[in-house]
């Protein structure tokens, strides 16, 4: 009986999934006539979340099936030892469960993948709408980088905290971290840049917040007084020089998030160290446009910048969330 209900649920979920897919296809074909990309992005986000939830359900369900399968298999072993019990029924059940498990797993994985794709699309559409709406402030849509003219390609190796002496024997030598022997170099330089940054890392300068309630964009802020000393490349951050960023934050409807205190953090994942300075949001230069001052990077490589929103910021359900929402931007400088 229980199994029947579960099968039914699986069928319903599959239908939902197909429905979402159909919906998705429809979306893609009508992309050119989307009037409000932000609204559309929100819809896509809902679908993504639905697909994710469905996927979660399927996986949970699969876990139950796995348990049943285990029970059946134990029963089968018992049956083999006891000729009086008919093992055929058990075998049939096992076959059914295996089929269901496989189907749940495949569907779950598909839905998860689909959810990921939908989120990606949502971010793309939101970015489009955001750029339209915040035209005055967005001068760069590319991921941030470091100026190409910067020759300093060193990054030190700070991979360890105080550890037992024996640990060091297990550590790699710098020679072993030489990423690749280059044909154009006879010097074998370890600790070359971009170490540890995964190849599929999202380095976009536009991001949804962790709880997907807000959307933000970062770029290097240059005003007339600092322009001359900074690179002409608007996406480039300077090396070893304190500079400013603009952090623009909108809510899920594309409206500026005003008058909030934002905490700034940053670190290098491959190096166990933080930023060399303590940057701060010093000013809100326009509604939702925050000036982040004191930003400095002392080396090239993979950096993570985190902007934490106040924990008393009301979420969509209008309840106070104790886990503050935040934005994480990856930079490969």
């Amino acid at each position: 009986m229980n199994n029947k209900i579960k099968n039914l649920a699986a069928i319903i979920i599959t239908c939902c999934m197909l429905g979402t897919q159909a919906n998705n296809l429809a979306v893609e074909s009508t992309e050119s006539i989307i009037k409000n990309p932000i609204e559309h992005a929100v819809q896509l986000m809902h679908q993504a979340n639905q697909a994710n939830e469905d996927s979660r359900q399927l996986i949970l369900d699969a876990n139950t099936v796995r348990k049943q399968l285990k029970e059946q298999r134990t029963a089968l072993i018992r049956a083999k030892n006891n000729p009086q019990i008919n093992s055929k029924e058990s075998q049939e059940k096992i076959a059914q469960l295996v089929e269901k498990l496989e189907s749940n797993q495949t569907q779950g994985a598909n839905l998860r993948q689909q959810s990921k794709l939908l989120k990606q699309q949502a971010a793309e559409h939101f970015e489009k709408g955001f750029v339209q709406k915040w035209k005055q402030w967005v001068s760069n849509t590319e991921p941030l980088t470091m100026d190409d003219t910067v020759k300093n390609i060193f990054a030190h190796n700070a991979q360890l905290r105080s550890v037992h002496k024996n640990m060091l024997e297990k550590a790699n030598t710098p020679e072993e971290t030489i990423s690749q022997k280059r044909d154009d170099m006879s010097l074998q330089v370890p600790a070359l840049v971009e170490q540890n940054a995964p190849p599929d890392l999202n380095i976009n300068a536009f991001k949804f917040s962790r709880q997907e309630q807000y959307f933000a964009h970062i770029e290097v802020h240059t005003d007339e007084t600092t322009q001359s000393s900074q690179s002409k490349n608007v996406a480039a951050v300077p090396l070893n020089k304190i500079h400013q960023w603009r952090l623009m934050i909108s809510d899920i409807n594309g409206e500026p998030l005003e008058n909030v205190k934002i905490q700034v953090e940053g670190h290098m994942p491959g190096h166990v160290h933080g930023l060399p300075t303590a940057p701060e949001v010093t000013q809100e230069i326009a509604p939702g446009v925050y000036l982040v001052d004191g930003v400095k990077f002392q080396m090239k490589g993979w950096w993570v910048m985190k902007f934490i929103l106040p924990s008393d910021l009301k979420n969509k359900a209008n309840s106070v969330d104790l886990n503050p929402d935040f934005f994480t931007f990856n930079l490969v400088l």
Partner: protein
Amino acid sequence: MEKTSKVNKGCNPRSITIGLLFVLLAACTEQNTETPSDNQELAKKTKTEKKITSDTKELYQFTDIDIQFLEPFLISNLGEPPKSVSNQYSENIDAAKLGKKLFFDASLSNNKQVSCATCHQPKRYFTDGLAFSKATGVTKRSSPSVLGAAYSPWQFWDGRKDSLWSQALGPIEDHNEYNTSRLTYVRNFLEKYPNEYQNVFGDIKLDQIAQLPKSASPKGNSQEIKNWENMSKTQQDLINQVFSHIGKAIMAYQRQLTIPPSRFDHFLEALVEKREAELPKLLSPQEVKGLRLFVGKANCASCHNGPLFTNYEFHNIGAPDPIDKPVELGRYQGVKDLVEDEFTCLSKWSDASEQDCAEMRFLKTSGPELVGALKTPTLRNIAETAPYMQMGQFENLQQVITHYNFPAPPVYNREQHPNRPHFDILPLKLTTQEVVELESFLHTLTSPLPKDDPWWGLEKDID
């Protein structure tokens, strides 16, 4: 594939037998006569020599990208020191000349025997060769060279000062160094250098200073502190004004110190200018091997880079704490001191607007990586500036390299450390031969003493 199979075909039992016969024959000949054996030795020797020459040749071959990579290390790429926002006199030559006099003037110290040059001796590349510097007393650390200091955003091993002018004021009041009070030093200075002072900084209110007690300082002994506290705010400001000007003159002087090119620079210049034939005359094969290790396997260049061989950052490399001393808190203590300091960029005595003091405004005051972290020192003239590390823990370069080769992480002292100290180095696992090579490279960073450069103040040493 075809070629391989042909070779295999040729390897038939018959040819093996013939081969064996030859070997046996050769062995017999070797036993019976001497001449062929000598020939073989000779051949072997020539072969080895040939190998060495070709290896050496390869050693001196650098690709364009290699050269591009190494070029930033050239001393000629150093340029001018970064603009000082907090010292408007930093480029003033008269201020620098006054600063030079002060740098070498022992008469202004308590025992009339201590000057900046006591611990920063020009002939020792502005160091003193001691583990703990000696002035009127013994200091807490080994004095670093002042060469290149103008390029660093932070001064002292732990970066507890944010400018050279503010740094220069520290030793004057330190009871182990000049051991003098702020007021005493200012008064004696003004009496000795009134014209020089006036020429750069304007009027002196000597009459007002005359009324003040003999000695006073917010950092001195209890009597001096009491005297300082009894002074009016205007009087204190008057003294602080001159005091900060003194620091600014010393800074202006230190900014004039330049580092002549070393053998390494001449080698690199020749590389850049494609004068390949000259290369073996400039650095020996051992030194070039050392250079390759320095930027390669030994990973020194990851922190010791640029024309001054430093990244001006703070790292904990775990130089062992002497047993009888408190643990090294490094930058963790440095930032605490900075926040309290009277003479930072943000202070009344700075010539910068608050807006321009970005390093202080956004000073990082917390983080596990601050604990025990010390400023990367320059490696320029390193072979001449032993002992090494902040307390001279290592007597020679070999000991330093051995530490990097098999480092022991800092010991976590739960009573003294605010958190587990960060540790920034990995064992290099260099061979004995490689250690020798690396050390020999470090010797190529020694510049000749510029006897004709008046800023270096080597005149006395020549006499």
